[in-house]
């Protein structure tokens, strides 16, 4: 496998949402229009055959990134480009969603749900071949062929997520965008789904863009990690690099919150403060109000994401000066 070919590159992508009150309210109450910058100036590259993860707290813009990449949202600025797929055409991409209860239409049979991409994109010539492919996909994800006739409510959360994966695979993608695919599942089921995803990656040569807030899941899955805070990437590194030697104070904070089996009563230093509102982000480095090593310039100047070594980038004044 050509490890150096990019499957996906994201260049300085920004997304702002208009969250203004309705027009009439604005006129009467004399309020200005209101915008939220959910994702600001994000750049990264995903190499073919690897798993790139984005981690961060709720509301930091992870899911927005996923939806920007899949095209469900339009970017405000910047561009997203895809590498060449097997046939020279742009790489095919699909998405696995977070909530297995709302990602399957409750009124559709599982077989129809999985067949939808095949029928919609006309990937098979006849109905017989389509059904054959559905059966094959169900078996690939560890379900039975006769499950095609059932409705989604007859399945557990983990099984539904398998159906979701089968549907995503139906369009024969090379890049899968996974938006917290395991966060709605029990821990034991999470492991099954993650192992299934790794197996599929090996068998089908998939590239993953994996979005999660669960660091242990990310460590299990990915090759490369980007840490997001309030719409920006604050650190980007190879997975072991980040887990063993995090540079950014926010990465350190995140790692410190992972429960430790060896030392379950370990005192976790509760970090002061909540993540700030993206409506009114702090000046300078967005993390400075909560940062233990904040300096004077942190509240003034926005730190740039700088290359540290061959596979690590960090955006922090303190790290640069040390």
């Amino acid at each position: 496998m050509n490890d150096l070919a990019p499957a996906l590159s994201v260049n300085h992508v920004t997304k702002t949402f208009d969250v203004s009150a309705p027009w009439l309210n604005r006129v009467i109450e004399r309020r200005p229009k209101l915008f939220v910058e959910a994702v600001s100036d994000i750049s990264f590259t995903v190499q073919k055959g690897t798993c790139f993860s984005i981690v961060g707290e709720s509301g930091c813009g992870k899911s927005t990134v996923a939806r920007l990449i899949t095209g469900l949202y339009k970017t405000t600025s910047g561009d997203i480009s895809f590498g060449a797929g097997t046939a020279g055409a742009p790489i095919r991409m699909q998405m696995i969603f977070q909530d297995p209860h709302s990602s399957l239409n409750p009124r559709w049979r599982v077989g129809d749900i999985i067949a939808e991409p095949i029928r919609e994109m006309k990937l098979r010539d006849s109905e017989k071949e389509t059904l054959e492919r559905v059966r094959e996909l169900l078996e690939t994800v560890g379900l039975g062929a006769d499950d095609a006739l059932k409705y989604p409510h007859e399945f557990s959360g983990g099984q539904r997520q398998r159906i979701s994966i089968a549907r995503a695979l139906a369009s024969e993608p090379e890049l899968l965008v996974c938006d917290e695919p395991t966060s709605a599942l029990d821990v034991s089921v999470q492991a099954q789904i993650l192992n299934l995803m790794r197996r599929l990656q090996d068998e089908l040569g998939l590239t993953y863009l994996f979005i999660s807030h669960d660091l242990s899941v990310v460590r299990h899955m990915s090759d490369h990690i980007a840490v997001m805070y309030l719409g920006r990437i604050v650190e980007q590194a190879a997975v072991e690099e980040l887990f063993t030697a995090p540079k950014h104070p926010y990465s350190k904070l995140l790692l410190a919150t992972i429960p430790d089996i060896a030392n379950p009563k370990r005192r976790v230093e509760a970090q002061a403060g909540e993540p700030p509102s993206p409506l009114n982000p702090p000046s300078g480095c967005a993390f400075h109000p909560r940062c233990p090593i904040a300096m004077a310039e942190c509240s003034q100047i926005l730190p740039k994401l700088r290359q540290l070594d061959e596979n690590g980038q960090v955006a922090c004044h303190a790290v640069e000066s040390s």
Partner: protein
Amino acid sequence: MTEQTTPSKMPSRLERFRDSDLWWSFKSHKSAVGAAIVLGLVILTAFMAPLLSPQNPYDLAALELWNAELPPIWMEGGQMPFLLGTDVQGRDILSGILYGTRISIIIGIASVAVSLFVGIGLGLMAGYYGGWIDNVLMRIGDVLLSIPIVLVAILVSSVAQQFLPPAFREAGVAAVLVLAIAMYSWVQYARVVRAQTMVERRKEYVMASRLVGTPARRLMINHILPNTLTPIFVAATLNFGLAILIEATLSFLGVGMPPNQPSLGTLIRVGNQYLFSGSWWIVLFPSVQLCILVVAVNMLGDWLRDALNPKLR
């Protein structure tokens, strides 16, 4: 791969229905069963009117003036075959009721169908696209709801009478009534569908379908619409009763069905004029029939609303 024998054979539609919560709830609900039986009888007799009724009330030649204002059969002066008596033109009340019920039911069903079609279509569009389309459609609906239905009906029917060629005027009355009622009641469906669509369209299954390139029209019809149908089903049942009542009101006021093609409302209007001359049966029996019909429909609708409401299960 060869044919797989599925261990749990697909139950047929009927089997699945008889195993469903809805059927169980229906069976255990005495008033719903009663209402369904009554409604079934009313509808059956109405549509078998040509077989059951002793007289064709539309056939003016069959009316004999010496049969006028005969009382019901159990009263002194009552005659066979006029079980419920006759009106001033010698028309059999029972036949009039059966034929009139048929017209009322047809107009009720047709107006519900038309308003469902318009309401679902516009509601889906308003909810799915949002923005100015939503604003325009919903404000039109608000304006229509703010005009009293009787005015709308008079307006629609008088305009229609102006433009319809004379040959169609008689036949067009029912269509105009349907249109007038539908113009009023589509708004309710549109609002329900719009609200539900706005919820569904954000769900991930819609996004997943968008990702494989499903066009908006198919997204709306195949994905979103089936998930909005439950409240619509309830609203349609209750509105069927309402549509019959509105039709009766309009006919009673004289803007509905003409006396030579009477609906229940027309029968009540005609009979109303003879109430004080002692011929109470001309107005009473059509009114009772209207009452039975609407109460049965509403009881079914109420049961359906409770049965389909997940919070009351």
